């Protein structure tokens, strides 16, 4: 009855060998393909660097003006626009301008990447229950696995730098947009879709004329969540070499600088709130006329 008292384990030696084998083969893999994969992501790197430089080199009044205009387009509210301008002024006044621009750059690129990959993936899932069955568990893993765990293979493969940081952010931030695109399209009123079909709409016409437009509020809610989650990853991304507001926070942790950590942390919060308010107002406007009204 020995197996009752002691859990039947693999055996210390075997376990060590197994781990070693996995590590070795991955190391081999990254030695063989690491460079290729890095080149593959080069365009992304150039884009990120270009955007970062653009944001940092543009005179601050112009940036604030553009941000204010974007806030107005999104929210159509003077309160939101005023709050946005105030936040950016305070951020600049406390010397966090450059880091904020770097953070904006990586958040923007990460969001665009998530949209470019996530929306088509969500559409695919909505059209095939098989695809949904395969992708859903992957998304679950992406959302729940501790970020530090997937940082290891990413660093092994791509080293320290902006691209691995960007990938780490995307892995964490992409699931909501995929899920909500899929959900949004699946929730489109069956009868409206049937009407399109009855009038002879092709699959394309149904997708772009009915399903996506009607799923837009949900898709947009996904974009909003993706941005929020990307912002939440800023500090972790800084650990592997992404510039931005995360870096001073890391420094503050290491040296117990309370004020530094607090200020930069609040700057991240300010960005999050601005994004959220603007996109919520925008989402509410999208919502209008998108739910079928049955009588009244």
């Amino acid at each position, binding site marked *: 009855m020995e197996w009752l008292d002691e859990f039947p384990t693999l055996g210390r030696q075997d376990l060590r060998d197994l781990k070693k084998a996995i590590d070795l083969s991955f190391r081999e893999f990254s030695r063989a393909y690491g460079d290729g994969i890095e080149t593959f992501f080069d365009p992304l790197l150039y884009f990120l660097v270009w955007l970062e430089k653009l944001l940092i080199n543009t005179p601050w009044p112009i940036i604030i003006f553009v941000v204010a205009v974007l806030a107005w387009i999104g929210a159509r509210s003077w309160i939101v626009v005023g709050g946005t301008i105030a936040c950016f002024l305070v951020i600049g006044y406390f010397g966090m301008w450059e880091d904020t621009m770097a953070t904006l750059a990586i958040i923007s690129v990460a969001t665009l990447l998530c949209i470019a990959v996530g929306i088509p993936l969500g559409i695919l899932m909505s059209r095939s229950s098989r695809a949904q069955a395969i992708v859903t568990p992957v998304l679950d893993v992406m959302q729940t696995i501790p970020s530090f765990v997937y940082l290891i293979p990413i660093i092994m493969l791509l080293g320290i730098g902006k691209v691995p940081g960007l990938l780490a952010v995307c892995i964490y931030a992409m699931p909501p947009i995929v899920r909500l695109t899929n959900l949004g399209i699946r929730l489109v009123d069956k009868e*409206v879709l049937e009407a399109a*079909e009855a*009038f*002879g709409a092709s699959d394309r016409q149904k997708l772009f004329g009915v399903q996506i437009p009607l799923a837009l509020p949900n898709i947009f809610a996904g974009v909003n969540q993706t941005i929020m989650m990307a912002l939440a990853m800023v500090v972790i991304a800084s650990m592997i070499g992404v510039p931005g507001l995360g870096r001073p926070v890391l420094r503050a942790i290491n040296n117990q600088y309370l004020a530094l950590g607090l200020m930069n942390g609040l700057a991240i919060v300010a960005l999050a709130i601005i994004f959220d308010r603007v996109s919520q107002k925008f989402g509410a406007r999208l919502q209008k*006329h998108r739910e*079928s009204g049955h009588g*009244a």
Partner: protein
Amino acid sequence: MLDFKSIGKVGTVPDNNVSTIDKDTTLDTKVAIRNLYKIFGSNPSAMVDRVEKGMSKKDLLEKHGHVLALTDVNIDIPPRRIQVIMGLSGSGKSTLIRHVNRLIEPTTGEIVVDGQNVLEMNQNELREFRRHRASMVFQRFALLPHHTVADNVAYGLTIQHIPKNEALESSHRWIDRVGLAGYENHYPDQLSGGMQQRVGLARALATDAEILLMDEAFSALDPLIRTDMQDILLGLQDELHKTILFITHDLDEALRIGDNIAILRDGAIVQKGTPQEIILNPADEYVSDFIKDINRGRVVEVGSVMDDTKPESGPTIDRFVVVDDALQVLSKAGTKKAIVTENEKPVGSVGLDALIAAVAKPKVGTARSGTYR
């Protein structure tokens, strides 16, 4: 194709039968539904045999887990007429009408439109068929909520890649035609149910399809609005002469609108005929249950109860006058017999007793037609 003037000429059959609503007339058939079976479930074709041998809907569901939605449905729909399909909820009406434009594939059977089997069409042909030859109006309107009224009505045309301005021009005409002028830029959620269904109707008419499929199109509306919509439809039909398949569970509506009525029960046709035939000779309990509460005096026409003797004198009554009005004529004239006319020419006579008998409820199962199964 979008020429407004051509609309009145739509239809391939010369219109020389308009006043004859007799089901024995040999009009050709616009839409023929033949031996149609529809079974929902994991292996429907394996169930056809059992159903053909007479297994009931209930048994099929309990023993084999399949839903029998339609059993051996046969209907010949003449062109330019309104064919009503009536039945209680769950009797298979929606399933049946969706076979005509193949939104639902049959388990076995044929749908022949203008001599062409819809089931043999490939994807492209089917799409063209839906774009140009059969359009549909839905019970819960099914408008595109993110499009304006004008764009909704133009939807069928935009799908056909007709230039935007041309499509909108036609859309405006149809909006006008259903009495919604001025609402072009409203969104569906800004309109009442009745107005939304006018949009649905205009959208279906805008493609100029000869066949109009209406699945309980007015059932979701308040009674008064429903009557309005029936008037609009009948007004349009006077002019456009579409072949209309109209689904309803409401007998008054069926009698008011239908040139022909087919009654569906548990997926099978119980009776087919003109409104007059169905009221005078209900095929079974199910049908007579349906018609038991109607005011027969306001529905049965003199032509349906007359005989062909032709008395010399007496008041004259047109054959399409309803019994109530005929009784009034007789009591005013103080006689017991009247001459029945059609187009001012005498075609028979009707007596007081026949009129009174018509108002009384009929015996069940007196139908002579072979449609009863």
